[in-house]
Every structure is written in C-alpha cells, then in structure tokens.
C-alpha cells in the first residue's frame, strides 16, 4: 500500500511539474577583451516584429531595470532622445563613428547599449518573445558582449496554472531580470 502510494505520488509530481521542466538561460557572448562599463547610453531598440510597440516596451522595462541596478549608471532617456533629434538619428539606423564619438563626448559614457526585438508571437494565451541586447565600447564601437534571450510564457509555469505569465509586460520583465541576473553573475557592471 505504502509503495503504491509512493509510486502514485511520484507520477503525480512528474505530471504536475512537467511545464516547469525547461529553464533556458540567456545566451551571453563575451568579447575576448571586454571591460566593465559603468556609465552607459541606452539607445531605443530596433523592432523586427509586426507589433509596433514591443521594442519601446522592452526598452522602457530594460531601462527601468538598469536604473534600479547599482552596477550601472544610465544616461536619462531624454538626454539620448534630445541628442538623436538634434543629430537627426533615426531609431534602428547605424550610428556613424563620428556620431558615436560625439555621443560619448556629450554623455561622458563608456558603453552604448542597443537592442533588437527579433520575435513576438501571440498564440492563444501563449506568448513567445526573443530579443538581443548588444553592449559596445562607445569610443571604438567594438562589441563588448551580447545577450540573446528567447522565452515563452508557458515556460514559467510551475504547477497547474501557477507561475504562468499572461502579459507581454510580465514576460518582458522576467526575461530582462534573467538577463541582468546573468550580467551580475559575470560582474559586468562597472559601478559597483
């Protein structure tokens, strides 16, 4: 009786926790000679999906997370936008070396953070999101590190419906936190 109950309990646990089996970490690629920047410029992200607002959503959530992170000092968005307006720099366009140097000079920053939203799929209640964040040396334009992250809302399910994410903002927030957790693990922030 006791063994039967044990078997049944094990099968039940396996069945209920099936959804939370996958744990995909962001993929972090570090350049050989990367350094730890402190003061960073976060430029608006490029959108490669059909949803026009997703890049801005990710940009805002990512910026908020970085502002709250003591490892980085983020240049206010208004300063960056003002620069982009004055220099007629469009979102998603490549920044020329001269403009990048001017940006570094004006903002007194060490790194330029850019991002691209690669995929956003909404099927029934499931959401799939993929993005890439690139951190470059603002003076030379060389890539310091990049992070690719792709997740579905279903992957956060713990048991039954618990833990499952139903909003894009919620998914973005969790993914951004995972990215920053990984950056912390590698001590990539230069302020602390």
């Amino acid at each position, binding site marked *: 009786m006791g063994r039967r109950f044990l078997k049944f309990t094990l099968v039940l646990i396996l069945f209920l926790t099936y959804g939370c089996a996958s744990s995909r970490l962001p993929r972090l690629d570090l350049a050989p000679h990367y350094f730890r920047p402190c003061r960073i410029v976060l430029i608006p992200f490029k959108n490669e999906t059909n949803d026009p*607002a997703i890049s801005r*959503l990710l940009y805002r959530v990512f910026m*908020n997370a970085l502002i*709250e992170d003591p490892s980085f000092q983020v240049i206010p*968005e*208004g300063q960056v*936008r003002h620069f982009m307006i004055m220099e007629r720099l469009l979102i998603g366009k490549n920044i020329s070396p001269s403009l990048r140097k001017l940006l570094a000079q004006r903002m007194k920053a060490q790194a330029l953070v850019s991002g691209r939203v690669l995929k956003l799929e909404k099927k029934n209640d499931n959401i799939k999101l993929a993005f890439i964040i690139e951190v470059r040396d603002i003076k030379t334009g060389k890539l310091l590190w990049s992070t690719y992250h792709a997740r579905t809302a279903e992957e956060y399910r713990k048991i039954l419906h618990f833990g499952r994410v139903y*909003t894009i*903002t919620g998914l973005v927030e969790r993914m951004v936190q995972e990215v920053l957790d990984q950056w912390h693990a590698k001590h990539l922030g230069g302020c602390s």
Partner: protein
Amino acid sequence: MLSKGPGFSFFILIIGLFFLFSAPLRARIVIFPFEDLSKGVNGVNFEVPSKIARALKERGVEVVTPKEVLPFLAQNRIRWIGWVDRITAIKASRAYEANLIMVGTVTELKKDDPALGVTVRLIRPKDYRVIWARTAVYSGKEEVSVLALNQLDFAAIEKQTVTALLKALPAEVQKGGYEPPVVEIADIFLKPRRVKGKHTLECAVRLDISGPYPDEVFFVTAGQKIPAHRKNSMFVARWLAPAEEGRYPISLLLKWSAYPLQKKIFLSTYFVDNQPPNIGLRLVQGQEINGEIAFNRYIYVVPILYKSEPIARWTFEVLNKNKQVVLKEEQPGALPSKFVWRGTNTGGHFLPSGKYFIRLKVWDLAGNVTEKGKEVLFVRQPPLASLIAQKDDQNKLHIKIKIGKHLLPIESWRLEFWDAAGNLLAEYTSTSPDFKGITLSQKKGPIYYTLEVRDILGNRSFIRYQPLRTIVMQASSEAKPVVKKESKWVEDF
C-alpha cells in the same frame, strides 16, 4: 491702543520664523501624462497617472496632476510623452515650483481580461538624474487563486498595480527644493569662422533657458565685451576681428539684474587669417622637352597645399598664347587631388597644338586668394610627312622624306617600297631623326610605298601603300631658254 515698539517687531519676527520653519519640506512632483502603448505608439493615458497622483496625495506628497500639466505641454510645444528632456524638466520644475518630475508608460492595459502594466520614472531636474524607476504588472489570470475562488476585476488590478509601484518611493520624495535658471545653447551661428583681420564677424545664439531671460548678454572675445541685442529668440552681435592672426575663442556672458547671478559659457572659436594659401603645381604624365612640359593625350596637374588649411573655392583655367581663357572650371570646397586636362576647351573640343598656360586660383575661407601657373606644350597633330622621288639619267630613284613644320622633334621613321604584285622591294627604318637620301634602282611597273613618321610624344603620321610619283631630273645644260613669244596684231580682225 497698542504701541508698535521694538517688542511688537520682535513678536512678528518670531511668528514669521515659526511659520517659515514649521512648513513641511515635502517634495512636489509634476506628473506628466503617460505614454500608452496599449493604444499604439502615439497613445496617451491620463487615467493611470491620475490614479498614481491620487495615491501620492493620500501619502501626503504634493502633486501636479497630468491635466494641470497640459497647458504647460501646449505652451512649450512638447510633442512627446514617456520621456522628458533636461530643459523641459527644469522649465516644468520652475513653472510648478516642483523638485521632481514623473514620467511613465502604460505598457499593457486590458479592461475585459483585466491586465495592467506600468513603468514609471522619477527625474530630479536639479541635476537631471533619474532617481527612481519601477515596473509593475498585474493580470487577472495570474492572480486567480486555487479553484478560481478569487477573480479580480480591472479596478482591483489597477489598485494593486499602483500600490506595487509606490511601494518603495525614494527618500527624496520627502524633500523639497528650488533651482536657479539653467541655460543651454540650442543653436549657434558664427559667420565667418575664418576671417581677415579688421573684417566684420557676426554671431547669433539661441538659448534654452529654464526661467527668466537674462537682462544683459555679451559676447566676450579677444579682450573685448560686445553687447548682444535680442532678435526674436536669438541674441545677435557684430564686431571687427582683431588684426593679428590667430585663433580666438568666443564666450557668452549672461547677466540677470534680479539676482546677483552671471554665467559665462564657451561658444566657439574663430580664426583670423591674413595669409593666402601657399600652393604649388606639379605636372605629371607630361614629357620634358627642351625645358618645356609637353603632352599629347592628357596631363595631370597636381595641386600642392604646402600648409594645410580649409579651402573655400578654386578656379582652374587654361589660357592660350593670346592670353585668352579657353578652359575654365570652378568649384566650391576643397581642392581635388589632381586635375586632368586632355587638351580640350570648355566645349570639349580639342584645341590646336601650341603652348598653353595652366592657372590655378585658390581662395581660403577668409577670402585670401592666391594663384599659381605653369606653361605646357600641347601637341596632338602628327608630323606632316611626304616623300619626294627624283629619277636620274641612270634610271635611279633618289628619295627624300620631307617633314613639315612640327613643334616636336621626330623620333623615328619607317619606309617600305612594294611592287604591284605586293613584293617588298626595300625597307628602311631609323630611330634617328636624320633623313639621308635613299637611292633605289627603278624597276618595271609602278612602285608603291608606306611611310610612317613618329614624333617624340608618339604622334604618328602614316601613309600606307601609296603609288610613288617620280620627278624627272634634267641636266642644267639641257635646259632650253624660254622664248618669249611676241604678240602681233591679227590683220584679219
């Protein structure tokens, strides 16, 4: 009746100080309307920030609600929300005597299937720093309890989100403050940036100021203080550049009479330049012949700027021997790496062979002009060559090559004789320009010849397979005297 003596004044002072220091030093937050991404990239939301304003008021924080900010946004023509630039932040803090600005974005808003996502940031205009940022998101589906016993509606979700957002407000929210005006240079126009000594300079500046405009504005340069007059939104001034060459900085001095405050801001620099550009010309692809550079197809004229400086414009001219300009090309901007002249005029037609003068005029940004020139010999026409054949008594042909007037020395020639059947009778080649006579024995039938003459530049005349016409030589003794016929009247006429 109370007498207003020193005791009464002291009482008033004490009361005043009590009210001054007992006033709470709380923050005053200007809450801008939020950007609403649920309505698209240009969506605006007043509801959520108004809810946040109400929640802050309940916590004892002074706020300026989004609807109260609207006139400020319209007056300052702010066309974006979700972020705020430095000057706008300072202007808003001055306008509402606030020390913090709140901007935010509604990332998700669903009322039927309740969900709300909001990101907010608090900006301190004093040093333009984001001092606090939060993201909160809640959805009805995520908050459903076991067996769906507790389902939340949108109002509950909204309340939960706002509470989560304001859970950990920074200590700064409890403080107050008021900042002096901040000045930023929006535009600067300086004309010209390079100028001759004692020539006029004009400078105009547009300022972004958070607060009142200064009462006095000066441009400070080369030890002089030039007062600027206000023209619409700009401050303009004119002055004479110093006579001495050099680089001079310009600064802007702003003075407010209301309070003892003056600011000096570096603007730009200008150069006083009295020297014309130092240039030289180098001719490439030509051939030096008797001290002259000659060419037949094209010549490269390479301008050399001995001392690097910006060039305003240049003129490239070619003059003929009568000093008439046959080719002219002028362009603004820097000098090209080289000019290529193919011996053509402005219309693109080839010019006759002869001597030409190439002239390059260069102006620097200060208006100093210089010119350099070089003479070249252009020879495109081939040497005119003909053959003279004389037959003597012994039936021998004495052949000479006759070259017409040519500007260049002859380098080589080649002569071939052929009979009517196409057999080569004789061939003469020389790489020297000397033409010694050739003697050829006459054979039966006509003789044909081919003559090629080449000058030192490679211009070539080529006479191909022409019949040789001979002149009969006559001895001087056989020459008969010319008899002059006498004219007579005809009788019959």
